C-alpha cells in the first residue's frame, strides 16, 4: 500500500539517497556541529561545549591555514592546466599515428590504474636524493655531482608533487580528448581547408570548440576527486619539510588525527569541502552549457 503511493522514480532513487544520507549527509551535519565546539578526541565531553564561530575565526587568523589554502589553490591551478594542455598535446599526437595506435592507447592508460598512494611511494622512490632514479640518472650522465634534495627543498618538493600529480591524471584528459577527436565530423574541417584556413586556424576555430565538451567532461571527472592529491602529498612529503608543501588536506588530517583537535579540523574541513563542491558544480554547469551549444540534449 505504502509503496504504491510513491512515484516510481522516487522508489528507484531511494536506495541511492538513503545510502548517501547515511554516509555523507549525516556525517557532514555532525562535522558542521562539531566545528562549532572545541571537540578533542581524547576528551569526549568537549563535544557538548558550544563555542560558536571560535574555530572559524581561529582558522581565518592562522597564517599556516592561509598558506596551505593558497598552496592548494596554486597546486590545483598549475596541475589541472598542465594536465589539460599535455593531455591535448598527447591526444593530438596519438590521433595522427596510423600504425600501432591501439597499443599506444593502451599504454597511455597505464597511470590511471595506479592507486594515488602508490604513485606517492613511486615518486618518493624516484625522487629520493640517495637512491632515486632521477638523481642516479643525472649523476651518471655527469650533469651534477651533488645529490639534489628533491623532496627536502620546499620548491623542488612542490615541483616533484606536481610532477607526480600530472603523471597520474594527464591520461584521463588524453583519453577523453582523443575520443572527442575521433567523433569530430569531417565536413567542417574540409570546408575550412577549402576556404583557405591555415592548420592553426582550423584547429582553433573548428576542432577546439568541438572538443570543449570533452575537456569539460574530463575536468568534471577530475574535479570529483581533486583531493586524491592528499594521498600523494601525504606519502611523498607529509606536508614537510617544515610545512613548505602543506596542503589544506594534509593540514586537516594532521590537526584531526595527530593533534586530535577534531573541532578545529572539522572547521577547516568545511572550508575544503565548500571549495571542492564549488569546483565540481562549476565544471558540471560548464559541461551543461557546452552540451547545449552542441545540441547534445538537455539535462
Amino acid at each position, binding site marked *: 500500500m505504502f509503496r504504491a503511493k510513491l512515484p516510481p522514480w522516487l522508489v528507484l532513487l531511494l*536506495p541511492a539517497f538513503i545510502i548517501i544520507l547515511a554516509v*555523507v549527509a549525516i556525517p557532514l551535519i555532525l562535522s558542521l556541529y562539531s566545528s562549532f565546539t572545541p571537540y578533542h578526541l581524547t576528551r569526549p565531553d568537549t563535544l557538548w561545549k558550544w563555542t560558536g564561530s571560535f574555530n572559524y575565526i581561529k582558522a581565518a587568523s592562522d597564517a599556516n591555514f592561509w598558506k596551505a589554502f593558497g598552496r592548494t589553490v596554486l597546486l590545483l591551478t598549475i596541475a589541472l592546466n598542465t594536465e589539460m594542455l599535455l593531455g591535448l598535446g598527447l591526444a593530438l*599526437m596519438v590521433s595522427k599515428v596510423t600504425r600501432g595506435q591501439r597499443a599506444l592507447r593502451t599504454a597511455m592508460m597505464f597511470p590511471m590504474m595506479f592507486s594515488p598512494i602508490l604513485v606517492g611511494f*613511486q615518486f618518493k622512490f624516484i625522487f629520493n636524493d640517495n637512491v632515486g632514479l632521477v638523481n642516479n640518472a643525472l649523476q651518471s650522465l655527469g650533469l651534477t655531482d651533488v645529490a639534489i634534495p628533491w623532496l627536502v627543498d620546499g620548491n623542488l618538493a612542490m615541483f616533484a608533487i606536481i610532477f607526480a600529480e600530472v603523471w597520474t591524471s594527464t591520461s584521463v584528459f588524453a583519453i577523453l580528448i582523443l575520443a572527442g577527436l575521433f567523433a569530430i565530423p569531417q565536413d567542417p574541417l574540409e570546408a575550412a581547408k577549402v576556404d583557405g584556413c591555415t592548420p592553426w586556424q582550423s584547429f582553433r576555430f573548428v576542432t577546439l570548440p568541438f572538443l570543449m565538451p570533452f575537456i569539460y567532461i574530463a575536468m568534471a571527472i577530475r574535479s*570529483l576527486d581533486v583531493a586524491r592529491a592528499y594521498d600523494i602529498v601525504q606519502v611523498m612529503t607529509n606536508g614537510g619539510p617544515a610545512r613548505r608543501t602543506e596542503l589544506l588536506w594534509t593540514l586537516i588530517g594532521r590537526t584531526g588525527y595527530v593533534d586530535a583537535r577534531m573541532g578545529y579540523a*572539522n572547521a577547516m574541513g568545511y572550508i575544503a569541502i565548500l571549495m571542492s563542491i564549488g569546483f565540481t558544480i562549476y565544471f558540471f554547469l560548464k559541461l551543461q552549457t557546452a552540451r547545449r551549444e552542441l545540441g547534445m540534449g538537455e*539535462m
Partner: protein
Amino acid sequence: MASATQHRIKKRALKTAHFLGLFLAMSLICIPGLWVVLNSFRPTIEIMAKPPVWMPQSLSLDHYRAMFGGAGEGGIPVMTYFRNSLIISITSTVIALLVGMAGGYAFARYSFKAKGMMFVALMASRAVPGVALSLPLFIIFGRTGIIDTHFGLILVYVAMNVPFTIWLIDGFFRQVPKELAEAAEIDGCTRWQAFWKVEFPVARSGIASAGIFAFLTSWNEYALASQLTRSTTSKTMPVGLLDFTSQFTLNWGGMCALAVLMIIPALLLTFVVQKHLIAGLTFGGVKG
C-alpha cells in the same frame, strides 16, 4: 622546384618532431611504472648501490617470497590484505552497480521536479574530499562499533561510487530509444521484464565501464581506508603499503613487490574492458 624540396624537408622535419615527441611522452608515461616493477625483482643491495647499477646483475623473487612467506619483513600479512581488498572492492562494486542502475534508470526515464538540482546535489556529495569526510565518519563509526570492519568500509565505498555510477549509467540508458521498451510493453512484457530483456542488454557496456570505475576507486582508495581500518581484520592493500615503512627506513624492494600485486588485478580488469571504458566515459558524459 625549390619550394617542392623545401616542402619535403619541412614535412620530414614535422614527422621527426612528431615521432620524437610521442616517444618522449610515452617514455615519461611508462618508465616510472616499469621502474617499480623492475625493482621488485632486484635485491635490496642492488637498489641501494652507489654508484647505481644500471644493468641488473641478478634478478630474484626474494621480495615476493618474503611477502607471501610472511615470516621475514616483519611478517606483513599481505595475503590477508589482498583478501580484504578483494572482498571490500567486489561487494561494494556490486551494490553500487545495483543502486546506480536503479538511480540511472530513474534519471533517464522519468521526469520529475528539480531533476537537474538533484543530479548536481548527487555529484556534489561525491566531491567531498575523503580526508574531510573521514573525520566525522571516524567518530560515528567509532561510536557504532563498525570501525575496522568490512561492512563499514563497504558502506562508505558504495556511497562514494553511487553518484558516478548513476551519471554513467544514466547516459547509457538515454541512448536506448524509449520506443524500444514501450514496444516490448505493448507485446505483453511488464515494465520489469522490458527492462531486463530490452534495456539492460543494450546498456550493458555502460554498466561494465561504471563497474570498472567503481572497482578501481574502491581498490585504490586510501584517505578513508587509512582512518577507518585499524588491524588486519579489515586493512586493505593501499593501507598495507605503509607497513613497509618504519620511522627511518623504507623497504623499497618489498614495497615494489606489493605494488605489483596491487596493479595486476587492476591492469587485467582494465585491459579486458578497455573499449567499454572509453565509450562509457565519453558517451555517458556527452550524451547524458
